[in-house]
């Protein structure tokens, strides 16, 4: 069963220079109890997509079209109050990018978590909310005594754990983690990934992980979506995507990651030529064509076909899929 289903979502930003089509027709699913990764480079629209699921877009961001179903219920038509009471944090919560700045520096950590609890259930007494927030800290491996400290007294890894505790405050079913480990050192990153995996198991959570680092997603996710310039290029079961990437962008992205384990030293690093496009004025046709090794005339003229099925759990949008005729 799908806990989250997104159909043909389009989100545009109105800016002084014109309209930025940050998300341009995305279909997306999260199966209950699974974790789904969303990979893409900076500026491809992945954070916008994550924020839109919680209706937290900046004021110039408009939802042009599309439907978002949570457990079969269309959640976009809900008004702000209903959304806040019934969906945001109650059902879907988020771990924001940059734990350094996501917390309020002048409140104690336990108070900030308690605030989230009280905001969604006014009947909870302050003392109970505090007790609950200390429990949450324990779940994420922070000594509950530390709750009475301020965010600046926490290390980067602890702050990120506290963010996770805050996301868990109202027992949501789906957590969106936006770059949960970026800017953390590898050892802290590894410990956080272990924590997220454990929580997903113990609390039967569904996860959506947004990251530019596909090696992090490879460790965490069951499914992987590859996003490029506001669109989904390829998605499928993570093992299959890594084993036989079909879109040239996916293939390039996976190859650019050197691994420690390689037997031989690489003579050359692999890269994708060029830079990601400006979404104010994306290339015509397939948006990846200026950087694609297999691009032909048709790629310059026509957008790629609708996302098509390769196998039961593998879909791609490309004129010339790798390893397939077309």
């Amino acid at each position: 069963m799908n806990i989250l289903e997104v159909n043909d979502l389009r989100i545009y930003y109105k800016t002084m220079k014109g309209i930025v089509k940050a998300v341009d027709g995305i279909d997306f699913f999260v199966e209950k109890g699974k974790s789904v990764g969303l990979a893409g480079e900076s500026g491809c629209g992945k954070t916008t997509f994550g924020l839109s699921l919680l209706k937290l877009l900046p004021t110039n961001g408009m939802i042009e079209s599309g439907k978002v179903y949570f457990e079969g219920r269309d959640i976009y038509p809900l008004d702000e109050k209903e959304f806040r009471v019934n969906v945001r944090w109650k059902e879907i919560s988020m771990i924001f990018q940059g734990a350094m700045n996501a917390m309020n520096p002048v409140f104690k950590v336990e108070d900030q978590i308690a605030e989230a609890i009280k905001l969604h259930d006014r009947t909870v007494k302050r003392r109970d909310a505090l007790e609950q927030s200390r429990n949450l800290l324990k779940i994420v491996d922070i000594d509950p005594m530390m709750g009475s400290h301020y965010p600046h007294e926490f290390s980067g890894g602890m702050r990120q754990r506290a963010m996770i505790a805050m996301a868990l405050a109202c027992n949501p079913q789906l957590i969106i983690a936006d770059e949960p480990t970026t800017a953390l050192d590898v050892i802290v990153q590894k410990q956080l990934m272990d924590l997220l995996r454990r929580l997903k198991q113990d609390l039967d959570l569904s996860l959506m992980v947004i990251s530019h680092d596909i090696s992090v997603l490879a460790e965490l996710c069951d499914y992987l979506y590859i996003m490029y310039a506001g669109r989904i290029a390829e998605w499928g079961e993570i093992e299959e995507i890594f084993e036989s990437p079909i879109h040239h962008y996916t293939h390039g992205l996976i190859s650019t990651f050197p691994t420690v384990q390689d037997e031989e030293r690489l003579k050359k690093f692999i890269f994708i030529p060029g830079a990601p496009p400006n979404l104010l004025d994306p290339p015509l046709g397939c948006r990846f064509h200026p950087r694609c090794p297999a691009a032909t005339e048709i790629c310059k003229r026509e957008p790629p076909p609708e996302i098509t099925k390769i196998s039961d759990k593998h879909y791609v949008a490309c004129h010339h899929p790798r390893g397939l005729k077309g």
Partner: protein
Amino acid sequence: MTEESLIRVRKLRKLFPVRRNFLSSLLSSEELHIHAVDRVSFDIKDNEVLGLVGESGCGKTTLGRLLIRLIEPTSGDIYFRDTNITQLSQKEMKAFRPKMQIIFQDPYESLNPRMTILDLVGEPLEINDLIESEADKLEQVSKILELVRLMPAEEYVFRYPHELSGGQRQRIAVARALILHPDFVVADEPVSMLDTSTRGEILNLMMELKGLTRSYLFITHELAVARHFCDRIAIMYLGRIMEMASSDEIVKNPIHPYTKALIEATPVPDPSSRKDKISIKGEVISPINPPRRCRFYTRCLYGKDVCSRLEPELIDVGGGHLVACHLDNS
């Protein structure tokens, strides 16, 4: 070591004083210092790429800046070939500067937004009086721009940094560092701000242009990148070098428990090889007046009594593999 060393570092130390308010300075007379780099000794060979790998706050950037004397050491010596550059006056140092250059981490911050590419890349030449005329400057700058693949150069020379992508900006930073044909270049996390798809391009470029310099110190927090880019790797933890060996050796036969943990923690882009818990505990201790013992003691799973009393020295365990750990010596 039989090969000639380009840089020799001996017991290099950099302490940063910790500022305290008036009241607490009355209550305690103990002076507090951040031990950013603490009695570090190593060599960089001629024609070698040495990787300096460590987590944030371990002192790797400080060490890089010390080597080219962007900041002054507290004590210790740095020899550039046969000259002890820590003893030079600022004026004498100026003659050495063209031989040592740096590529900074963030190409969005390190390039002056008001200068054209021509002025940015030509600045090192101007400072060192190496140009005869404007035409000469244009020619030299164009030449290096073509080498860093900003072609045709005429299209770039009169543009400003904001008109370029991150990868292109970092190529400007590389051109600035290499235009003087230095002997030694410190590259401080040169690709960490770039998109993953484009960083390989910069790394390849730095490799190809190695002919314009002799040795690199490549500072990074990513062991995977260092493993492929560098000849040798030094692992740094809290101001000390813990292990140092050829990049093949350090990845295949790590000895120090910290190096092992780093390798285990490095994510692999392959969902079929997920790893379990890593062998490390706790968090990094404060670098302010660290105790005189193994700095990794509180996080090490194999710590012994001696580790809590004595600070291990970096010693050769054979074949140029250096380790600072008591466990190995027993």
